[in-house]
């Protein structure tokens, strides 16, 4: 009897490697099934759901006010953005006008949150390619933003700060002063990051020309946020469909230009986040300069009972386009709430752009997409 393996049936060149769910480079409990031939990855299957807690089902049993802490926990690195996105959707459904001070406060905290979130993205991205020091630096500076938020509302990670109809606490003059101090300090820090990481030869070698995502692929997969802008697409909801009061501020939308390699490579996605932080500083400065006085609780409805109807609202979070779909039947709980999470779509492109690269490059590409599993699994 012939016992030799029939190579046409058994693929002896391919090895299936499980990366995760517990792995330091998957940024959470994500499992990647890598089909590898030696060191080269031929196929990637992302397996998600390890953090699934059925947020959407919970929402069908909670009143509109009670949902805010749950949206906090979706994207736990940018909680303010999630609260803001949800609050805008509910306000659209209720059709209420907000006091101007509330809008300004929301923009200030949302942009501070964008800085904090991008700092984690940049730090962990450096960590993924082997740069340890930038991570400690970015976390140190993120801590300062968290200190500001702690002074503002008492919480450091999950704020429950932006509510439908307003915010929970007013800004104090001390907060404004401390924010100014932080921005002055942070501007000099960005220069240091650029010296330490952006222009670093090893960093450029590891990220430039790696994981190139062409613009048409990115759009077809629904990739949004800095990852899309890294591919050279000028698409930012704050500019194209301004919500809140973003049309009042002067800021630029950075896009990837292929400075170190090809347009849409990992370095471009990193660079877009870096420049976006500078733009956020500009927005915060302008907002604080023209902050009006007023009551922050004025528009807060006593009981939220929207009229029958549906709403789909969009928001530009640190990771991309958050969509909130709410179906209301006139009661104080939503009939159905669906969250289109940006990182969910951003992760789906990984199998397209990550194939053909080495395992270490797949980690780089995953890091450059900046995913948060809490939001993907919801």
């Amino acid at each position, binding site marked *: 009897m012939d016992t030799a393996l029939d190579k046409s049936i058994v693929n002896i060149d391919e090895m299936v490697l499980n990366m995760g769910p517990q792995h330091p480079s998957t940024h959470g409990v994500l499992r990647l099934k890598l089909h590898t031939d030696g060191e080269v990855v031929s196929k990637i299957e992302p397996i998600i759901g390890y953090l699934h807690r059925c947020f959407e*089902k919970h929402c069908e049993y909670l009143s509109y006010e009670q949902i805010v802490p749950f949206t906090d926990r979706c994207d736990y690195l940018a909680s303010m953005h999630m609260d803001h996105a949800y609050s805008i959707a509910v306000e659209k459904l209720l059709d209420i006008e907000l006091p101007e001070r509330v809008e300004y406060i929301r923009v200030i905290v949302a942009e501070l949150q964008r800085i904090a979130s991008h700092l984690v993205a940049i730090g962990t991205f450096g960590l993924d390619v082997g740069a340890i020091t930038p991570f400690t630096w970015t976390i140190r500076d993120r801590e300062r933003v968290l200190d500001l938020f702690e002074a503002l509302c008492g919480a450091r990670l999950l704020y429950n700060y932006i509510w439908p109809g307003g915010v929970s606490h007013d800004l104090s003059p001390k907060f404004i002063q401390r924010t100014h101090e932080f921005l002055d300090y942070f501007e000099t820090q960005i220069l240091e990051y650029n010296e330490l990481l952006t222009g670093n030869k090893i960093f450029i070698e590891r990220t430039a020309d790696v994981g190139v995502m062409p613009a048409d692929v990115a759009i*077809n997969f629904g990739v949004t946020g800095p990852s899309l802008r890294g591919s050279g697409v000028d698409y930012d909801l704050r500019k194209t469909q301004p919500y809140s009061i973003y049309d009042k501020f002067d800021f630029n939308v950075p896009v990837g230009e292929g400075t170190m390699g090809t347009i849409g490579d990992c370095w471009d996605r990193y660079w877009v986040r870096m420049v976006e932080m500078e733009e956020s500083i500009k927005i915060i400065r302008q907002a604080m300069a023209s902050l009006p006085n007023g009551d922050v609780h004025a528009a807060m409805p006593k009981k939220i009972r929207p009229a029958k109807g549906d709403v789909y609202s969009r928001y530009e979070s640190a990771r991309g386009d958050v969509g909130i779909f709410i179906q209301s039947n006139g009661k104080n709980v939503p009939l159905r709430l669906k969250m289109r999470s940006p990182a969910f779509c951003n992760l789906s492109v990984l199998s397209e752009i990550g194939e053909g690269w080495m395992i270490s490059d797949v980690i780089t590409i995953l890091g450059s997409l900046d995913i948060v599993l809490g939001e993907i699994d919801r």
Partner: protein
Amino acid sequence: MDLNKIFDSVSSIDGVELNPETNLIAVPSASLLAVADKFKNNINLEFDFLMCITALDNGDSKNFTIAYNFHSNKHNHSIEIRVSVADGEDVPSLSSIWKTADWHEREAFDMMGIKFTGHPELKRILLPEDWEGFPLRKNYEVADYYHGVPIPKDKSYWE
């Protein structure tokens, strides 16, 4: 481009109707691919972004509505269309046109049990593959056991 103009360019397709009260375009599932093709390729529409697919239970877990939200990056306009489907009926998959549909349709299948024909790999995405039932249906009841482990339903001890 406003809603009426967008509707005019697809109104010739069989069964496509505009609801004047809710301003939504209703599309029968048989015409979905024709509408999608027009949305993607018509030079005046060019919806390159499929933003979101939301499966809605109409209340009795027998009839469902699927809401598709499109956006055109080039023309900066958006549209929402609705497809009604009964339990067990198939809906054509849009994953060959917009890759975003791939995971969103898997999620709709996972949570609401809607089957999409022509999908490359329609299986559960967020829940384990051996999960029973579709949790976002209104008639969903939590099972007593999962893999032999009792699921606590008495919440009195933490309320």
